[in-house]
């Protein structure tokens, strides 16, 4: 896959939404230009790169972490003071289902975890050679 084919695919799937198309093209071009290195993009950074609104970026990220154009993988990290813990899918899923996030080290619930957990985006399978 290359940037042009990805942009074309996105344009077909989002034919009725010009905002997502524009944001998608900007983000896809960035991702393909950076595909050889490590990637760790915050949601804020996605907004900047796609030059769009938070709402458009959310819809775009949802699509690009999916099945048809998997250019991104969504992950989450817990940040408390200056310490960072990347969270595994099963930990995040548990929190989404049960409303409690267990601290990776202490194994006890993190109070107000939603304020301390941040999404970030890695390369998806579509970008990995």
């Amino acid at each position, binding site marked *: 896959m290359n940037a042009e084919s990805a942009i074309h695919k996105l344009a077909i799937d989002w034919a009725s939404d010009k905002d997502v198309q524009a944001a998608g093209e900007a983000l896809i071009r960035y991702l393909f230009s950076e595909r050889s*290195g*490590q990637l*760790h993009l915050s949601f804020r950074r996605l907004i900047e790169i796609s030059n769009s609104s938070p709402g458009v970026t959310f819809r775009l990220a949802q699509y690009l972490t999916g099945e048809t154009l998997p250019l991104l993988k969504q992950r989450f*990290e817990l940040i408390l*003071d200056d310490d*960072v813990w*990347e969270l595994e899918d*099963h*930990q995040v899923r*548990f929190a989404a289902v*049960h409303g*409690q996030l*267990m*601290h*990776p*080290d*202490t*194994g*006890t*619930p993190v*109070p*107000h975890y939603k304020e301390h957990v941040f999404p970030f985006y890695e390369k998806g399978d579509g970008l990995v050679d």
Partner: protein
Amino acid sequence: MNTIALTEALQERGISFTLFSYAMKQNNLAPSQGWDLTIARITSELANPKSSAAYENGIKRIYSDLMYYGSKVVRFYISKDAAKVRALLDKHMVPDTQSFGKSFPLPLPGPQLRKSSVNPTCVFTQSLKSGSTYILCSRQFLIEREKLPDDSLEPQVVKDYGDFDEVIGIRKRWIQLFDVVLVNDKTGVIELRMDGYGRQSLADIEKRLEWLVSAVNAQLAGLGKAYQLKGSINFFPKIAELYDAADGRISELEHATDTAGIHKGKTRKKKADFREDSFHSAAASTAGTLHAYAVSKCWDSPTGVGYIDLKLPGTLRSMATTSTPVVDVACILNCASETDYSFVLSKLL
């Protein structure tokens, strides 16, 4: 030994839940989310005749492995004659039965712990084909700080003292640590594996380590000066080697430059390699020689479950003050089993 008591003891001892869950998976047991749910799961598996033996034996093995390996600050000595040292220590390291020994392998309960020794005391010895191990327990003082919820102050307190932006709770308590001495008469290596990483400062752990070295040397006095523990293995040269070796991933690096810079960098993910960080790699290629004085490296566990870390905690001072910089301890972290620990040793020795 009660399986649930062992599991609860691991939590009480501050073992990382992630490390415990990796240990469970390496032993084909199924953890749940957090300690409480996992203990509930273990309880239900123990009540099931099909799985009870697996969980009972597995948790026992995990407790032992995390006591011997886990996360330790380790110093290594090459012995003139490890067999002689072992024979002498086997004779003199008599397990305590009055204090720590009464409860071992579990930690002492609070009131009894407060009366126990602050110096490492032998509680268990084990003689194997390749060498002997000695487990020593001690009572250590811990000060824990925890940010409390914003609304945790009583209204009267707010009225008397005003509002605060942050409320920090300070807990002062005693904890029990489990250090390990290993004398391997096949390789001639003596290891002093100190517990407490992540709970005590490295300085406090090293203070206890020095006490232990003195105590062991006192036992070895009869053999003569040549058998004393001195001149431990210096890992400073290993720092550059680990950075240059392609395997594993550099997770943290501290280095100086010829142009008066001091740099500290780390990755925020286990799978990331700091050498591939664009900022670092560009700077490294410009700077030429990196005068690294501290490094952390991470590998996938050879068991296929979990990650293991090696940290060589040098300081700028150690590099600056002598012509032969010394890093005399290695932090061998997140080892869920002997397989993990041996893997790290193979990178180190």
